[in-house]
């Protein structure tokens, strides 16, 4: 019995580690520039967590087998060892807090990245079970919006005010967007009704869209293709169907895509 339990506790981390190392299931293929640092951090975190996981289970399994009751001997009367306790407390503090500082350095590096002047600006307004994308058009300015003007039957999904000339050339699409490859994109997230979350797995981008707030998030796509935008925050009964398509294309294709959309 002790040996069986020990073997279980040894096999568990070995099998788990092999499945991770073998990448049987793994993150979707990376398609953004900043995502590399996130993936590296994830790998580092997995290695640290995995090492603790393996060592702790090896020790647990070994002790169960090695110190199983013999019936004749007495256990060691051992109550404390202040130096040992201080040593492992300090060691874990350095390990965890060091890892935390490193993780935050990566995050701050991404969150505080400044945007180049040619950044592509897109406004995303999430609503129950759809993504509305808006491009500012040739004037580079988004027109004023007013929720009272929202009228899906007229195609005015986000309530663009017709009295504001800045909004005349705005391009609005639903569940379909395009961005150019290798150019920074800044998305401003808004929500019409409840909280949603903008998730593009291959870009390693996830950010909540909260009603009442405008929250920026940015990425630079590095591979052309079509990606999925999924909602990551529970938003109601069709949450699992809230799917947008994000097409990454060359600069020339992007410009012609914008023109064709503007003509609609």
């Amino acid at each position: 019995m002790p040996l069986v339990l020990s073997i279980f506790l040894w096999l568990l981390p070995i099998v788990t580690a092999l499945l991770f190392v073998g990448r049987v299931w793994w993150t979707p293929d990376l398609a953004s520039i900043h995502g590399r640092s996130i993936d590296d951090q994830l790998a580092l975190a997995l290695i640290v967590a995995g090492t603790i996981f393996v060592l702790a289970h090896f020790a647990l399994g070994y002790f169960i087998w090695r110190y199983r009751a013999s019936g004749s001997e007495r256990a060691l009367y051992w109550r404390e060892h202040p130096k040992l306790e201080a040593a492992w407390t300090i060691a874990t503090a350095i390990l965890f807090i060091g890892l935390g500082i490193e993780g935050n350095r990566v995050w701050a590096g991404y969150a505080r990245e400044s945007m180049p002047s040619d950044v592509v600006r897109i406004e995303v307004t999430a609503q129950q079970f759809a993504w509305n994308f808006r491009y500012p058009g040739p004037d580079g300015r988004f027109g004023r919006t007013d929720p009272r003007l929202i009228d899906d039957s007229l195609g005015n999904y986000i309530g663009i005010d017709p009295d504001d000339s800045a909004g005349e050339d705005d391009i609005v699409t639903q569940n379909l967007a395009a961005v150019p490859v290798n150019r920074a994109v800044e998305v401003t997230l808004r929500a019409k009704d409840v909280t949603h979350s903008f998730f593009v797995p291959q870009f390693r981008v996830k950010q909540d869209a909260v009603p009442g707030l405008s929250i920026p998030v940015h990425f630079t796509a590095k591979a052309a293709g079509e990606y999925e935008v999924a909602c990551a925050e529970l938003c109601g009964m069709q949450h699992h169907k809230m799917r947008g398509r994000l097409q990454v294309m060359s600069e020339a294709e992007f410009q012609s895509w914008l023109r064709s959309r503007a003509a609609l």
Partner: protein
Amino acid sequence: MSGFLRRYLFSTDHKVVGIQYLLLSLAAVLVGIALSIIMRIRLAWPQEKWPILERLMPAAFAGGPMTPEFYLSMMTMHGTIMIFFVLSTAPLSGFGNYFLPIQIGARDMAFPVLNMLSFWITLLAFGVMMAALFATGGAPIAGWTSYPPLSALGEIAGPGLGLGQGLWIVSIAIFCVGSLFTSLNFLTTTLNLRARGMSLLWMPLTVWAWFTTAILALLAFPVLLAAGLLLLLDRIGGTSYFLPAGLIVSDQLIPNQGGSPLLWQHLFWFFGHPEVYIAILPGMGITSHIVSTFSRKPVFAYKAMVAAFFAIGFISYIVWGHHMFISGMSPYAGIAFSISTMAVAVPSAVKTFNWLATMWRGQIRLATPMLYSIGFVSFFVSGGVTGVMLAMPSVDIFLHDTYFVVAHFHIIMGVAAIFAVFAGTHFWFPKMFGRMMSESLGKVHFWLTLAGVYAIFMPMHFLGISGGLRRYAEFTEFAFLRPLQPLHVFISIAAFVTAAAQIIFLFNCFWSIRNGRRAGVNPWEATSLEWTIPSPPPHDNFAGVEPVVHRGPYDYSVPGASRDYLMQTEGGPE
């Protein structure tokens, strides 16, 4: 009042109240498991029709596969029932009520009538929660976190968000009141009713665990109560605590303005993170107690264990923002929350080191309580290391709201705490009922549950790392999610087997009450005060003789002693 009612129903005896809480948790956990089975059916086979289930619950199917809103309502109720009525109830109010007074040598709780009232308030909360489950229009679908605006808008935001959501909030508010009374009772009892000689640093670690948990409960539940009342006011009083201006829901303009959805998240997680520790601290206490008893060794570094309870308890109040890294909160605040979360891992690691050090050079007896406690340590490590990962915002960006998080919190606060309950049940059953539980049935149950739980939750890490989002009724709409379906089928089958294995535990409990081997006063050769009195204990615990305590709680294998344990009431070698 007749004798029976007074003795078993409206009893003020802490032991009866403890058992009442345990039975309430048992009822709740059965409901919670049933709901999770319904969830797993939908997740594994989302398009399948189930004629038998449809006959039982026609509205949930509407002539086709299970509806997504029904799935979400099952998910919401599963989480709520498990977290509040199982994990916050059995380890603290169940075992704590029964054993805290006995372990410190008291005749009862400080406020026995308030204690009885706490239970009846909690039972009322459970009744209202069951009403939410069966409410007209469906049970709520906003998740156990019930984020507004979704939870604040009523029926127009989705099915179950009218009456069902309203009842949910009322139930949680009532539950908070009951837990608040319980924590007051625990704190007062521990501070004022200890027997002669029972100094604070001679209390068993179980008592320290319940004491620190009660401090957390005392400070956390009022915040949730307040948040719940504000949410209720937004729904029925026309206020706008959580609703900003200009919301358009189902083509309707919502008149509220000026509120903030993030306010709820801050209030909820200010409660919600300490809540995690309310669920797990009693388990740490039980594990420390049992690992020492069955290793026949003193708990290693007792004072560090006590300090770790307080460190975890204190730090747990300044980490809540790690649930909100991607919520739109300031990144600077995120950094503070991330580092504080890393800090809470330190006392948690210290506890693990101390459990291992307690086993080192012990004489380990692998009886069922010890098996479950070893399971606890294993789960605590498995779920803890993923917590360290998620504490980093850069990692959390990708893993937030995926099954990686589901795996993390189920292992560390769900399964670990439940294994502590299994351990506690096998350990204290002979004291509560005078008979031993079957060791062989217990071992079968332990193995099936240990292997089953890992089969359920280990694959969820892989779902998460592949981007698999939680709270999705199905994985069919997205190309990046569809390849994960075989994992869901595997998890569901593992869940069905593990759920079925719980019948063994149930049978063992009820069968052993009448048929178990008779237990003596101290079947485990343990040292704390509950093992000095008859099994089951008399009404006033110590039959009018106040115990006098002469030593700390874990004097196992003391050199020079005639046997390998010395009771707390014994003199003899120091």
